[in-house]
Structure formats: structure tokens, C-alpha cells
């Protein structure tokens, strides 16, 4: 389980997160909503130990990781995998090398075995034909798929973290990515690998998540399911999720 307890973080004078607290099980499908610059991505980076909070605690399975060294954090990070906005593919490597990255670092697989596993993953995500393309030759949707394939290669994350996975994509491609995200978290809790998705696209979040949080001015001002979200009395939040009513 992930728990953020009174987490505060500021960049200089700008307070991004102000005593933020929440808990999430690994099998949950959580969406963190909010406008740009509200600290959504910062929460993901804190969970992974890529940032340290100014105050507060971050507990993974009951253990506070805020004081852990980089080598201690490596074990905790194995619980997660992340897909960053725009994919964050290694631009000097082709698709095959990107997906094989973890296998090369951690396994003694032969080249044939790596090829077989990479092809199998890409085939599952419907992009096997792109295996020898470079990242700049891929469309936005394909880049996200490759990033998802890389995040699944060589590890079995308990929880996936998605940072704006559909931003900048056309509605059809965004819909395909949502289906893929949902497909990957299929199964029954508690064995299921859940996810936290941070996005400002409410419709996409509603397609995949079952729990929603809304971040504003460094605080979580809403935490609930889709029905509670639609029935919120907060006028600003109602305005933010207006496309849900239209749908």
C-alpha cells in the first residue's frame, strides 16, 4: 500500500503540495486530476523516491522511504513502473533496444531470447512492425505504447504509474491507450496490478479509473468514485469536469 502523510513540497517559494495525505492499495485504479502545474506529476515522482518531500512521510507497504538512500530505494521502485508524458523513450535507441533495456541490465538472456520476448511484448501491444524504428519515427500513440512495453519488460510491477498518458493524442489514439491501460490492469483485486494515472483529461480518466482525486492549490480537495465526482458541489471542480456531463 502507498501512503502519503502530510507531504509538503515547495520549489523555491512556490508551494506545490501542502500537507497532502492519501492512501492507495496496489490494486486500486486511481486517477489524480488537476490543472497543469498543480503538482500531479510531483506526486508520482515522490512515490518513486525521485524527489524528497520538504516534510511529511511517504510509506510504501508501511515503510517510510523519505530517508532512504538511492540504493535502498531501488528495491521499493521495483514495485512500480512508470510511463512518463511523451513516453520518455531513449532517443539514441530503437524500439527493440528501448524495450530490451531492463532485460539487458538485469538478465543474462541471450540475444535470441531478448528478441523473442521483445517481439512478444510488442505483439501484445500491436506494434511489432515498429521494432527497428527509432523513437522520432514513431507517432505519439506508438511512443506511448513502446513506453508501456518497456515498463512491462523484465519486471512485474505491483502498480503502474501513468503521467498524462493521453496528452497530445487525437481522441481515437487516446481511446486506444485507455483501453490498453485498462486491459493491462485486468483481473481481480488484490492480485491485480492497479495504477495511478495523473491527467487533466477527465473523460480519459473516467474510462479507466474507479477512484478519483482532484488536486487544487497543493491540496486534495476531492477523493471519491465517479458518482461522487459527478455530484460534487464544488463549482470549480464541476467546471473542470464539465465534459463528463456532456458525455
Amino acid at each position, binding site marked *: 500500500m502507498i501512503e502519503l502523510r502530510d507531504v509538503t513540497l515547495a520549489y523555491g517559494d512556490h508551494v506545490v503540495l501542502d500537507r497532502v495525505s492519501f492512501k492507495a492499495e496496489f490494486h486500486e485504479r486511481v486517477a489524480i486530476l488537476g490543472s497543469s502545474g498543480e503538482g500531479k506529476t510531483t506526486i508520482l515522482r515522490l512515490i*518513486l523516491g525521485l524527489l524528497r518531500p520538504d516534510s511529511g512521510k511517504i510509506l510504501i507497504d508501511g515503510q517510510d522511504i523519505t530517508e532512504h538512500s*538511492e540504493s535502498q530505494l531501488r528495491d521499493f521502485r521495483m514495485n512500480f513502473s512508470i510511463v*512518463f508524458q511523451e513516453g*520518455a523513450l531513449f*532517443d539514441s535507441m530503437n524500439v527493440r533496444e528501448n524495450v530490451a*533495456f531492463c532485460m539487458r*541490465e538485469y538478465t543474462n538472456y541471450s540475444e535470441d531470447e531478448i528478441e523473442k520476448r521483445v517481439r512478444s511484448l510488442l505483439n501484445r501491444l500491436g506494434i511489432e512492425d515498429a521494432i527497428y524504428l527509432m523513437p522520432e519515427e514513431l507517432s505519439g500513440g506508438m511512443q506511448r505504447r513502446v513506453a508501456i512495453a518497456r515498463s512491462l519488460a523484465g*519486471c512485474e510491477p505491483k502498480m503502474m504509474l501513468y503521467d498524462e498518458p493521453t496528452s497530445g493524442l487525437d481522441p481515437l489514439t487516446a481511446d486506444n491507450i485507455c483501453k490498453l491501460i485498462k486491459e493491462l490492469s485486468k483481473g481481480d483485486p488484490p492480485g491485480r496490478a492497479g495504477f495511478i494515472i495523473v491527467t487533466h483529461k477527465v473523460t480519459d480518466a473516467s474510462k479507466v479509473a474507479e477512484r478519483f482525486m482532484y488536486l487544487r492549490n497543493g491540496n486534495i480537495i476531492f477523493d471519491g468514485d465517479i458518482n461522487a465526482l459527478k455530484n460534487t458541489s464544488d463549482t470549480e471542480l464541476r467546471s473542470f469536469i464539465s465534459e463528463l456531463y456532456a458525455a
Partner: protein
Amino acid sequence: MNIRDTISRLQDFYILCFRAPLGVFGRPFYIRETIEHMDYMGTGSLFIVFLVSLFIGMALSLQISAELSALGLKMYTGRIVGLSIIREIGPVAIALSFAGRVGSGITSEIGSMILGHQVDIMRVHGVNPLKKLVTPRVISAVLMLPVLTIIGDAVSLLGGYYISVFVSHQSGSYYWSQIRDIMNFKNIFSGVIKPFLFGYLISCISCYMGLSARGGAQGLRKATTSAVVMSTIMIIISDFMLTRVLLLVLGERV
């Protein structure tokens, strides 16, 4: 930037300088990456080193022979050109060219990986960015800069020879005999030891600047500029300090 930030950045830099070379002593060994960087830094820099060295050698020879001929001593051109090139100008000039070409490349490459979250991806997947990104670059720079310096020195001496013989009309064999005279342990050692330090400094500074890049394209530009400026300053300062130490160690009186 306040004092606390400055101290914290200096501390990070020293840690990087200390840990980067130690990366070669533990698994995983990034041999393929190291060879690729050696190729980029060494083979890729040959043309610029050749060009810079040739013209430095020719300019130096031209200037020195003009001054010495006024004193009737132009037969010593080879000796003075050789000493200046091997002990001082060669290592410094090649290091400055190396900082401009390779140092800026290292910073922009690592910086864009930072800004594109590629380094975060490495950390999430349990890969140590220092070992994966910094160690191979530092090792490659430390190994390749001395090689480039030796090649550059040879090209400079050839440039000096061309000016001495075909412009200043001196004896070619006498030029080379003077070069042979100065090719003793002290001079060669002084000239060859410096590029090891310069390569280490350039690569550590450039990697650090790349890893600390923040703030989009503008931040990357700032980091790259800082890397080249800091490398240049450190080359000049460390050259002076090393020269002083070498004179002392080799027992040469000033």
C-alpha cells in the same frame, strides 16, 4: 543562488568526481558504451585536433623564428617550438578544443536525457545513472585526451617544421635534431600527464552540468555554456598549478 545551494552543488560535484572513476570496479561494466564514447571522443575529434594543432604549430614557429632571427638565433626555433608545444601549448590547446567539442556534447546529451525524463526511467528501473552515464564518459575522456594530445603535438611539430624549412629557410635536419634533444623524460612526462587531469576535469564538469540541467531548452543552453566556460577556466587554472607541481617534483629550477 544562496550559499546553502552553492555548498550543496559543490558537494554533489565532488561526490560525482569521486564516485565516477570508482564505477569501473563493480558490475555492471558498461564496456560497449565506453568503447562507443572512446570512438566519439577520440576518432570524432581527430579532425579538429589535426586542424588546431597544425595551425598552432605553424603560427608559433612563424612568430618565434621572426623574433629569434632579429637576435640572430633562429637556429633555435625547433627547440623553443618543441618545448612550448610538448610541455604547455599542445596539452592546453587540445584540451580547450576537446572541452568545446566533447564537453558541450556530453552536457547537452545528458541534459536532454534529464529534461526528457530518460534518467528518471533509468532510476526507476534500478539503473545507477552515475555508473551508466558518467563512468563510461569519464573513463573515455581520461584515456582519449592523452592520445589526442600526442597526435596533436606531432602535428604541431610538423607544422613548425614546415614553417622553419620552407618559410624561414632553416635546415630541416637541424630542426629535428633539436626536437630529439628535448625529447627527454621530464618534458614528455610533463606534457603527457596533463591531459589525463584535463580529461578528468572536462568530463566530470560536463557530466555534472548535464545532470543538473533544469528548465527546458533555456536551461539546457545555460548548462552547456556553463560546462564549456567552467572547463576552460579549470583547464587554465589546473595547468598553472600542475606546471608548478611538476617543476617541483621533477627538480627543475625556475
